[in-house]
């Protein structure tokens, strides 16, 4: 049994779980998938990789950014059965580059996948953030 009270201009509603069980009838505006202004996550509507995605962290912008981009693009465009099997040279190049910066690319991480421990990014809320501090790193 919920109740409601008013404190000046502020309204306060207390609701029980049951009250909120009925689905909401609030109407939300349909999202336009081609909205040019929206952030698009990792893959852009036209299929390209969004190198600026927070999910990539600093991978595409660091000293090994170019190698990372080459490797990941190749992987992304790969149509082989074992995806990325022809990209081994790019990945090797990327790994060599990363080995030069152990501080930035800690070796225990899987450097070949996009997000790494270091690369936890400025995840603002568009990335299903867990908590406020996901805005860190």
């Amino acid at each position, binding site marked *: 049994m919920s109740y409601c009270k008013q404190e000046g201009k502020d309204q306060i*509603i*207390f*609701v029980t779980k049951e009250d909120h069980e009925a689905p909401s009838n609030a109407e939300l*505006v349909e999202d336009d998938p081609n909205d040019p202004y929206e952030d698009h996550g990792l893959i852009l509507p036209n299929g390209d990789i969004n190198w*600026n995605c927070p999910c990539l962290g600093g991978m595409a912008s660091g*000293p090994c950014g170019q190698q990372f981009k080459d490797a990941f693009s190749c992987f992304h465009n790969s149509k082989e059965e074992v995806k990325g099997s022809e990209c081994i040279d790019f990945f090797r190049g990327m790994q060599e580059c990363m080995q030069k910066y152990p*501080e930035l690319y800690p070796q225990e991480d899987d450097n070949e996948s996009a997000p790494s421990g270091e690369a936890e990014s400025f995840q603002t809320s*568009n990335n299903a953030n867990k*908590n406020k501090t996901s805005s860190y790193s």
Partner: protein
Amino acid sequence: MFKCKAAWNKLAPLARASSTLCRQAGKRAVLRHERTPQFVQPAHMSSGPSGGGGENTLYFVLVGATCLAGGAYAYSTLVGDRERYQQRITEIESRSSKPAAEPSTPAKTQPETAEPVSEAVVEPSIAEPVQEEAPVPEPAAELVTEAPAPEAVPEPLVAEPCLAEPVVEEVTPEAPVLEAAPELVVASEAPAPETPASEAPAPEEPAPEAAASQEPDSGAPTPEAPAPEAPVPEVSAPEAALEESAPEIVPEPPEAEHLVAEEPVTEALVTEAVSAEPLPAAVAEIVPETPPVTQSASEPASAAASPAVEPTHAPYLLIGGGTASFAAARSIRARDPGARVLIVTEEDDLPYMRPPLSKELWFSDDPTVTETLRFKQWNGKERSIYFQPPSFYVSPTELESVENGGVAVLTGRKVMHMDVRGNKVKLSDGTEISYDKCLIATGGIPRNLQVIERAGDEVMKRTTLFRKIEDFKALEKVSRELKSITIIGGGFLGSELACALGRRSADLGLEVVQMFPEKGNMGKVLPEYLSNWTTDKVKKEGVKVLTEAVVKNVTYKEGKVEIKLKDGRVVKTDHVVAAVGLEPSVELAKSAGLEIDSDFGGFRVNAELQARSNIWVAGDAACFYDIKLGRRRVEHHDHAVVSGRLAGENMTGARKPYWHQSMFWSDLGPDVGYEAIGIVDSSLPTVGVFAKATAKDTPKAATEQSGTGIRSESETEAVAGSVAVGKAAPTPPPQQKEDYGKGVIFYLRDKVVVGIVLWNVFNRMPIARKIIKDGEEHADLNEVAKLFNIHEE
């Protein structure tokens, strides 16, 4: 092509030596035969029929031998050079500090190496030039202009500038060294043109030209890509020129760097040289010693040369080294491959994030936290407050040359003047940097209370305006040493610091007082009922909270800071922290001709964060037009990230307006944690929908259990427990105080939701963002609240 040039550079000295010998032989012949000086000229063009004679034959033989030897030498040098370059690179990288070497030692080794070089190349009858060469490197190492010995310049000296390239380039990471290096080169350039003037014959000019061209090369070490090919081609190119023209030897003031270059020259001639073996070792020694040598040998010409060391042009110039700037740098690098981004910051630190300075860093158990500046995130992972370790950045001096571009940070410089028409800025040290695109992310400085400013030095000494790392370190020290701290200000920073210090108060025996003019903590953000509730929580953290406290004056009395309030209350404390707002840094507006907003402060920019054609502003200093919510200025971390990223995108041509709403959050003790988005102003009418309190809504137990502080709240919100609160009674009876455990608060402006606070409810920010984006009028906000599933985990 570079290979040829480098090979030429290396072989040039050989050619010069041989030609010197020939010339001198010719001169001796002239003197002996008492021919007129005119004959000296034809000696150069001795291929004609009037030539002939013994001297010319000798000359041809020598030149021919030189060419053959040079060819063989060039080949071996090319091969060996690459290896040596890699060795030097690894040496320099592994070097933690420059060894303080005596300049004399390398200088001395140089003349020795110079000798075998000349000996090896030329017939043994060159005692004279050798001896002349030997003393030359030594005084030259001390940079005495060797005008008296113009001709005896050892050939290796010419190769030096070329081979100096790798040395100089390797030396680039060492900034002070670098300043010395171009200084030396500049100095060498001065005598170099002088001495050729003393040489009559025209064919010499190609040599000085080649040499001079090498000098500017090494004089500007930064533009040269530190590729192994670079030194080698340079050697070959001038060498070819020299060989063809058979010129006089161009006197080159041998500098320490150049002397180092002698090593590879001599090494190649191992088979012929006398003392080649010690040279490879000497190379290794001398490379690290070169920096100190160049430093010690620098001339007053340094002053003129030092600005050239640092970048004079940055395609992307970011003013300010905070969160917005770093986000922009990342964005630019992601979108523009190979971009060269220069960050200029007043602070001495690399870019770092501020929120932990008032939260997580205080909760750390690590006693060295003030040094490490590491904290534990909500997910348990530890990280530093610095966005990236120093190895992420390139040195500013390398920025223009490094292959794939990078981000460089110039610390400790303030941009004093901005010339928008000329697209350049002037720094506090006089340096001028031109740019293609510029971001102003200067942030702000903490405001101070007038009463404190007028209170005198004793009070100012005991006042902290909290914003930077050094403020954190100072306050941390104060909290351990003093007995009472008062925080003036009841907003985010003040409340967070009060809670952080309050937590320590029991352990440290510290009294923490917080005072502010509002009725409760976060009085300007949260509706009154929630603000009051929050204040109670803050008090439970061990903070003495004085509400409705307006400071009348502050004095220093009897070893204590005495704060007198308008209503008569007096607070005696040891230290004051003023957290009364941020003043945006807009000093550049005047020189740049940028508009300042009168309502919100900060630079006025459009929806795309642009102030003028090539100038964007982001972060705390930007008063921007939010398409959904109107013009505003936001001083939160996530906004700095979002706006910085957007500015970076727009600087690389994206042309997107501010669209993705930034959020913010705060933690005030283990019971109070919230996220918020949009305009969260307590003067707006609000509708709060709270879950009726149950035992599970006190995550305190969970927090204490996990021991990772407030962050763990989201992970460990307790499971359902018994219901404690009363039923439908509308009035909150005194014994049953309504517990605003968790809920959603909507802030309305003309019946449209413009702001949302998620109170102890996490992972729902996307829904909140969507509601604000829609900008719809909702009749029943309870229905909207249902979308948040506040009863759930």
